[in-house]
């Protein structure tokens, strides 16, 4: 299931302080490392969303500190549940699944050819340049590629290999309320686990 929190303007300082004080020390320290309050809020929310998801779906109340692979993909030791977290300026998202999963959310920003040329093939660039709405088309492509790279656990290093979304099952959703784009990678097309499309839940501050 995928959990979306895209009402960051309604996430009060009081709610943030309450959540922050409830976090395990290691996660609190990670959140407080950020310079900006908004980044701290997003970091706290991502973890609180994960706690909510694991509690609601799997009855898991507590879990140990994340471990990270060499490309920064987090996991929880001895936990069979897979998860992926992402946040951008206006949204925080969390996906949990019995199978490997990757998620990415980005704000829809003006198309930037210098960014696009880093991660797109020549064919993709040609299609983008001909499109009527390059802002949305490119962010959709970016989130699809990043969701795939997070699914595969290779992070940003994989983006530059100009991965093709054609080999993977990726769900996308535009979030007009927050002007964001969301992509969820379920795996390679040959994998039988990819035919279960995740439910997407919108979460309010009161739910957490």
């Amino acid at each position, binding site marked *: 299931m995928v959990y979306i929190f895209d009402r960051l303007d309604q996430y009060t300082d009081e709610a943030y302080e309450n959540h922050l004080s409830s976090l395990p020390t290691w996660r609190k320290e*990670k959140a407080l*490392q*950020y*310079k*900006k309050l*908004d*980044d701290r809020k*997003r970091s706290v929310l991502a973890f609180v969303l994960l706690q909510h998801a694991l509690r609601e779906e799997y009855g898991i109340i507590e879990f140990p500190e994340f471990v990270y692979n060499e490309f*920064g993909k987090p996991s929880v030791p001895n936990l069979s549940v897979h998860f992926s977290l992402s946040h*951008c300026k206006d949204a925080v998202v969390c996906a949990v699944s019995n199978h490997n999963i990757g998620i990415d959310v*980005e704000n829809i*920003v003006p198309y*930037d050819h*210098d*960014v696009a040329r*880093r*991660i797109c093939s020549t064919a993709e660039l040609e299609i983008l340049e001909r499109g009527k709405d390059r802002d949305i088309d490119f962010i959709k492509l*970016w989130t699809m590629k*990043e969701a795939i790279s997070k699914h595969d656990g290779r*992070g*940003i*290093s994989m*983006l*530059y290999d100009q991965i093709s979304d054609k080999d993977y099952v990726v769900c996308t959703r535009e979030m007009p309320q927050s002007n964001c784009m969301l992509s969820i990678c379920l795996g390679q097309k040959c994998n039988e686990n990819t035919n279960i499309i995740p439910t997407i839940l919108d979460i309010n501050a009161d739910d957490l």
Partner: protein
Amino acid sequence: MLEKIISIISEYQDIPADTIHADSHLVNDLGFTSYDMVSLVGKFEDEFDIEVPDRKIKLMKTVDDIVKFIEAATEE
């Protein structure tokens, strides 16, 4: 060079320059996303008239990493 880099990062991320240091981690301290990293590198390329290979972006973890790369690139 450090001051110039910090100034660009400060403007891009809307973070006070005096809170950004050479050892500030781009992701963990300054909140950079993958998109921010790629976008910011484009600004450095324009500002310093350099080319940053993809493989170098992967290695930029701190402000100092950026400074060292740009200093080397502009000396060539």
